[in-house]
Structure formats: structure tokens, C-alpha cells
């Protein structure tokens, strides 16, 4: 009996599918140690990042114009809302000035360097991932500007993410909305800690283990320290929640940053962990870490 043999196209298809699957497995397994995958990425970045930067520079004004026209009505509403918010913020600013002075005094007493004192590099976002499920952005500054892997990335509102991969003149930022990212946080009002993890386009998930106090809607959530400098605003609690005895508190947090509207960002030139938390001057003894390492990020 004759058996039909697959044609050449099918054989090629099966070969490429098996090869792709093996490539993914290999890349996932060697992601942490540097591999052929990172070499290939560097080469692709070297070739394509100038093209992407040029394409971004050309298309940005056109996209901006179309976007502006499409959102004209909502921009007017937004403008009105912003006016009313501005009045509130001015009032809050006046209240916070005295608190700021108090904070500076405490920082100088404890030799703590705040986020505002860290060197920053301003970068522009010029690329996104091809898929809506990859929460990464390409920025137009790289290792030649002092940027390194793991450095926190912020904008004027708060935390955006951290540098994931660095090339000579560009870098890739993994957003805190990525499901593989966890950030150790503190709820400002209750001063209790937990962590937030990304959920893509949905609000961040906040998890706190056996907190004594409930969280309320609108509570500000800031970074706790460790991989990210302490005190960077992450977001606000979306829905109040309390934990039952012995159980974790779970709720969601609206990120302070609108990830789809990012343009310019700042990379904090520090490598996280102890370097950020400067301690007692040398003559007074060895550096002291002020906080326990919080639940940081998962890889």
C-alpha cells in the first residue's frame, strides 16, 4: 500500500516550527546568563535602532496630528478637568512645603539620598514591542550615556519600570505593568508594605501579607526601597480592601503613569539595592543598610 509523503513545504514548515520552539526554550533557559540570544538581539538593535529612530522621528508628527484631531472633543473636557485639578494641586502644594522641609531635615540627619538627588538621564521613547502583550519600550539612550541594566525609569509622575537590556545608544525598559515584574511597595497612609505586580493593560495587583490596617480607595502606594529607590510613587489604590485574619490583602492599584502616553522618561543612574541607600559617613563606621530587602522583583 502506498503511503502519501508530506510535500516539501510541509517538511519545511515542520522544521521551522520545531526550530522556533527549540529556540524559545533555549532563550528562556539562558536568559539570565547571556547567550546567543542576547548577541542576536544586540546585532539586531545595532542594525535596526537607527532605522527605528528615523521612522519614529518621521511618523511621530503625523501620528500626533491624527491623534490630536481624533481626540479634540475629549481634549477639551480634559482641559477643563485639569484646570480644576490645578487649583486643588496648588492648595496641596502650599500644604506640602512645610512637610518637604521636615523631610529634608530628616534625610540630612540620616544621610539618606532622595530620588531628587540622584543623577538622571533623560531619554525619549522611540519604539514599542510589536505585540500589545509585551510591556517594553525602547529608549534612545544607552550604555554610552551611563545607563545600565536594572536602573529605575521614572517620569514626572512616578515609577515607570526598569532598564531591562542595554545597547550602546539605546536601551529597553520593562514596564511595571509587565506580568513578570514585582515591585516592593509601601502604602503611605498605613505605612505597611507589600508588593504590586503587573497585569498588562489592567490595573496593578497589590498584595499585602497580614496587614493590620485596611487600605482605602485613593491611598498612595510608593516604592519601598531595594531594587527601586524608596518613595517613588507607583499608583493609587483603586478599591479599598481589608484582610481577613491570617489571609493576604489583595486589591488593585491604578498606576500613576499612563503607559500608552509616555514620551520622555528619566533613567535614575543608580544600580539599586545598597548603593541607593547611602549610610553613615566613612569615619563613623561601615555603610549600614537602612531597610531590610523588601519583596523585590521576580525575574
Amino acid at each position, binding site marked *: 500500500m502506498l503511503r502519501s509523503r508530506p510535500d*516539501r*513545504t510541509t517538511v*519545511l*514548515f515542520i522544521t*521551522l*516550527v520545531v526550530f*522556533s*520552539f*527549540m*529556540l*524559545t*526554550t533555549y*532563550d*528562556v533557559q539562558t*536568559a539570565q546568563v547571556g547567550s546567543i*540570544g542576547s548577541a*542576536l*538581539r544586540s546585532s*539586531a*538593535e545595532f542594525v*535596526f535602532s537607527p*532605522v*527605528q529612530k528615523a*521612522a*519614529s522621528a518621521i*511618523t511621530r508628527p503625523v*501620528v*500626533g496630528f*491624527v*491623534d490630536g484631531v481624533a481626540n479634540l472633543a475629549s481634549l477639551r473636557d480634559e482641559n477643563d478637568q485639569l484646570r480644576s485639578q490645578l487649583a486643588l494641586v496648588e492648595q496641596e502644594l502650599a500644604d506640602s512645603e512645610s512637610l518637604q522641609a521636615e523631610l529634608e531635615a530628616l534625610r540630612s540627619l540620616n544621610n539618606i539620598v532622595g530620588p531628587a538627588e540622584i543623577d538622571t538621564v533623560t531619554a525619549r*521613547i*522611540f*519604539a*514599542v*514591542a*510589536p*505585540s*500589545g*502583550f*509585551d*510591556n*517594553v*519600550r*525602547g529608549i534612545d539612550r544607552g550604555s554610552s550615556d551611563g545607563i545600565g541594566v536594572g536602573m529605575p525609569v521614572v517620569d514626572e509622575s512616578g515609577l515607570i519600570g526598569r532598564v*531591562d537590556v542595554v545597547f550602546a545608544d539605546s536601551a*529597553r525598559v*520593562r514596564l511595571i505593568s*509587565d*506580568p*513578570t515584574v514585582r515591585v516592593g511597595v509601601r502604602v503611605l497612609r498605613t505605612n505597611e508594605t507589600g508588593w504590586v*505586580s*503587573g*497585569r*498588562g*493593560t*489592567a490595573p496593578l*495587583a497589590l498584595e499585602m501579607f497580614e496587614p493590620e490596617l485596611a487600605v482605602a480607595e485613593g491611598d498612595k502606594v510608593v516604592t519601598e526601597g531595594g531594587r527601586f529607590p524608596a518613595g517613588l510613587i507607583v499608583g493609587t489604590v483603586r478599591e479599598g480592601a481589608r484582610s481577613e485574619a491570617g489571609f493576604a490583602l489583595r486589591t488593585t492599584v491604578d498606576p500613576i503613569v499612563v503607559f*500608552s*502616553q*509616555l514620551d520622555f522618561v528619566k533613567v535614575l543612574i543608580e544600580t539599586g539595592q545598597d548603593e541607593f541607600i547611602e549610610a553613615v559617613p566613612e569615619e563613623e563606621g561601615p555603610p549600614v543598610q537602612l531597610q531590610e530587602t523588601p519583596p523585590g522583583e521576580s525575574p
Partner: protein
Amino acid sequence: MTSSRLLGALALVVAAVVLQTTLFVSTRPFGAAPDLIVLAVFALLRFMPAEPGIFLGFTGGLLADLLGGSPLGMWALSLTVVAYLVLRMRDRARDSSGLAVLGVFAFTLLAQGQYVLLGTLFGQQPLKDPNVPRIIILTAVFTAILAVAVLPMSSWLSRQSRNRRTRVLA
């Protein structure tokens, strides 16, 4: 198919990947954007020989992997599958624009769905985002809308090129 036409097809897929990664930096209506890579692969594969066509899908996917944030091979696998299915079904949609647009919609759904499935398998946890079904459907809808403009253009270009070749041979 001549090597210059193959290079031209490759250049179009590369252009689609570059545009996909730069055009939608700040514009993603309802969190989604059209999938230009699937659209380019579909438009080109309707008129390409089978084996270079499969390679084209694989190459486009691999480039998307290299410029994205996911493990290498995930897009390559998704687009190889899409390319193979387009090649198997292209005769049915060659003369019907409506079917072709429907095909773009279905293949975009397939590519995105596969990508999410592979992401879950390889620990990227895309399903933690409860909006995944909405994003997949919107991406397919946007791509199909764009296909209404792009596919007739690609058909016309292909016809022109075929006519020129016939004239040269005659």
C-alpha cells in the same frame, strides 16, 4: 520568482516590523493596534511561491522577536504557522476581497492567540491581563480594517508585475 522580487518582499516585511514597533508608541486605541506584520505576510503570500513564503513568515516573526521583549522564537513560530495556513488556503481567497479581509481577521486572531498561548507556556504570564480577549479581537478588527485598503493595492501591484513579465516574455 526572481531574487530581486524576493528581496523586495523581504524589505516589505522588514518595513512592516519597523513600522509596527515605531508607529504605535503613543497611539493604541482601546489598548490595541493593527498587526502590520501579519497583514504584510498575508498580502505578500497570496502571490508568492510556497517555500520562500514560509521563510518570509519565519523571518518576519524572528525579527519581531529580536526587536520585542519576548523570548526569541515565539513570534517566529506564530508567523510560520500563519504563513503555512495562508499558503494552504490562498487559492480560495485569491479572487475574493471579502474572503481575503476575513482571512486577515482570522489569521490575526490566530497569530495573537498562539502568541498568548506560547507566552503562557514559557512563563511570560500574558493571561494575568484580563483584557487579553479584548486586545486580541480589537487587534484583528483593526488589521482587517487596514486590509480593506492594503489588499486591493497588493493585488493590483501583483497584477501589474505579472503583466509586465508577460509582455517581456512575449
